[in-house]
């Protein structure tokens, strides 16, 4: 729907301004063939109102043929041919209207004058249509820049939200309660183990808070956090939880958003270990391939396990943060195959903090 046609008030405005432009057209027609103002206006005003609506059709042509880049020439030619068509339609309408007027209201207008009027309509119609097309292109460009601005803002807001949610999810109270319960159990049977677990838990919390406050962290730091976490879960789940950690040495220096891997590992433990009697192996892989860093988190899954609600929310959260971080090069892909659920993250491999790359600082 054309933006001007959506509301009655705007529609009235279109009709009124089109009717006003009927006055100069009437003046032009009187110049070519003298006639009373009433006759000229009776012909020109309705024709302009009609054409007012015809030129609005440029909107759809503009949207179909956007300006800029390789398509510009095609857009220009499409608009030219549309202008000829529109003008021809207008002239045709003008002929019908002129015949109607000459038969019923103004019979003394010579036939040659009517033909000339139609010619004027056709000649004037083409530039009028083109002016409308240009106005529409300007409007569309304005709207596009507005939308782009809004998108940038929205992305920023989602990124902040995602960070907050990640942090909140990080300090998962049930994880803490269960861990404290394990500590409680160990105090009786294995005081040394209880002590180690307290240390591990404290270390994990401190790291979580420290990493969460930063823009980026090294993959090594993130993995250290993940290892602390898995160490704590190991006490709870015992042999049910096996960990396979395969990290390429070159990958640990890469910068990643903080707490990116951690929620994925937590998911893997929940669905792959906690929800399964026999448990299994959580596998974490970090590989650097050219300019890209590939991270894989994999857990066993029962083939008949339904896709749970809530699983998607955590992944969406990670995906959004990844997009904010790596833009087009960042991807999150999930697959479920052969009894394994696998999340693969791909992101640009930066060794440095991206914003602080100072030119000329390397060697004086």
């Amino acid at each position, binding site marked *: 729907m054309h933006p001007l046609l959506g509301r009655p008030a705007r529609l009235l405005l279109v009709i009124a301004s089109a009717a006003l432009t009927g006055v100069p057209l009437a003046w032009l027609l009187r110049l070519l063939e003298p006639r009373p103002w009433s006759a000229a206006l009776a012909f020109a005003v309705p024709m302009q109102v009609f054409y007012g609506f015809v030129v609005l059709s440029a909107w759809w042509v503009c949207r179909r043929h956007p300006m800029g880049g390789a398509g510009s020439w095609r857009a220009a030619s499409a608009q030219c041919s549309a202008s000829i068509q529109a003008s021809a339609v207008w002239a045709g309408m003008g002929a019908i209207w002129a015949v109607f007027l000459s038969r019923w209201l103004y019979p003394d207008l010579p036939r040659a004058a009517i033909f000339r009027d139609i010619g004027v309509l056709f000649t004037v119609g083409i530039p009028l249509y083109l002016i409308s097309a240009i106005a529409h292109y300007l409007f569309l460009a304005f709207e596009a820049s507005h939308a782009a601005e809004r998108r940038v803002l929205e992305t920023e807001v989602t990124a902040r939200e995602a960070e907050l949610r990640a942090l909140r999810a990080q300090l998962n*109270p049930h994880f803490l309660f269960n861990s404290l*319960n394990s500590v409680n159990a160990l105090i009786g049977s294995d005081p040394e183990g209880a002590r180690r677990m307290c240390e591990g838990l404290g270390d994990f919390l401190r790291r979580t808070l420290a990493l969460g406050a930063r823009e980026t962290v090294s993959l090594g730091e993130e993995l250290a956090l993940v290892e602390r976490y898995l160490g704590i879960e190991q006490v709870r789940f*015992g042999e049910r939880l096996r960990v396979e950690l395969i990290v390429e040495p070159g990958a640990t220096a890469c910068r990643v958003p903080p707490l990116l891997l951690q929620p994925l590992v937590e998911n893997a433990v929940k669905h792959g270990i906690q929800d399964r*009697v026999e448990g299994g192996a959580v596998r974490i892989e970090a590989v650097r391939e050219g300019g890209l860093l590939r991270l894989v988190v994999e857990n066993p899954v029962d083939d008949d396990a*339904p896709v749970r609600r809530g699983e998607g929310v955590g992944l969406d959260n990670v995906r959004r943060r990844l997009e904010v971080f790596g833009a087009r090069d960042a991807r999150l892909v999930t697959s479920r195959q052969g009894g394994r659920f696998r999340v693969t993250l791909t992101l640009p491999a930066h060794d440095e903090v991206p914003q602080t790359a100072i030119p000329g600082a390397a060697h004086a």
Partner: protein
Amino acid sequence: MPESLRVVLVDDEAPARSLLREYLAAHPGVEVVGECANGFEAVKTIGELSPDLVFLDVQMPKLDGFEVLELLDPAPAVIFCTAYDEYALQAFEVHAVDYLLKPFGRERLAEALARARERLALAASRRESSPAEGDGAPEAAPAARAALARAARGPGRHAERIVVRDGAQVHVLPAERVDYLEAQDDYVAVHAAGATHLKHQTLSELADSLDPARFVRVHRSFVVNVERIARIELLAKDQRVAVLNDGRQVPVSRSGHERLKELLG
């Protein structure tokens, strides 16, 4: 000397079980007769040993604590042990003796245990005065347990699976694999993936727990998974059958047909 109490511990985490064991060792007369690490084991062990009291975790693999309770008839006295506080209200609706939030201490456990003894003594005295009523531990009616399971899922959510017990065996049937349900006296026959399982529950209760967008009561005694319906055939006036993809037929009453039309548009 307090009466002896036979106890089963159900928790998927070994440290949590050993903690309970340690705490309970301080209570004379309490005998831990079994330990289970998942819901399947729990159903089997509790069924075999009929303990006086069960310590039951909620979040476990395969079957959660509520599903375990749903499958036990008669249900034992239960003390829930979980890190999640959101199930507490519902737990008391099924007459759980107590609800221990992890981590908990010796005193809190002693309190729960005292409560359990009280409850069991009361049930025993009732049994003596009127032997016909009750047969041991205080138990919630299956209906109440189903209500609990529903409440535990939260509003607007539906059971994604049906648990049935066949002697010592427990089957977990994903809802999408169920073809139709059929009322048979006090049981519901669950027809799923070519097999039939009997579940001790009324058809209405079971149907209520399932997603109404998928399961439709087409007849007083039948609920059908609409995704299985190939076509509806009219046999006589107001007498229809739903023909399923595999050719089986399910009777459809007049009001059932209305409901089907409403759902399928």
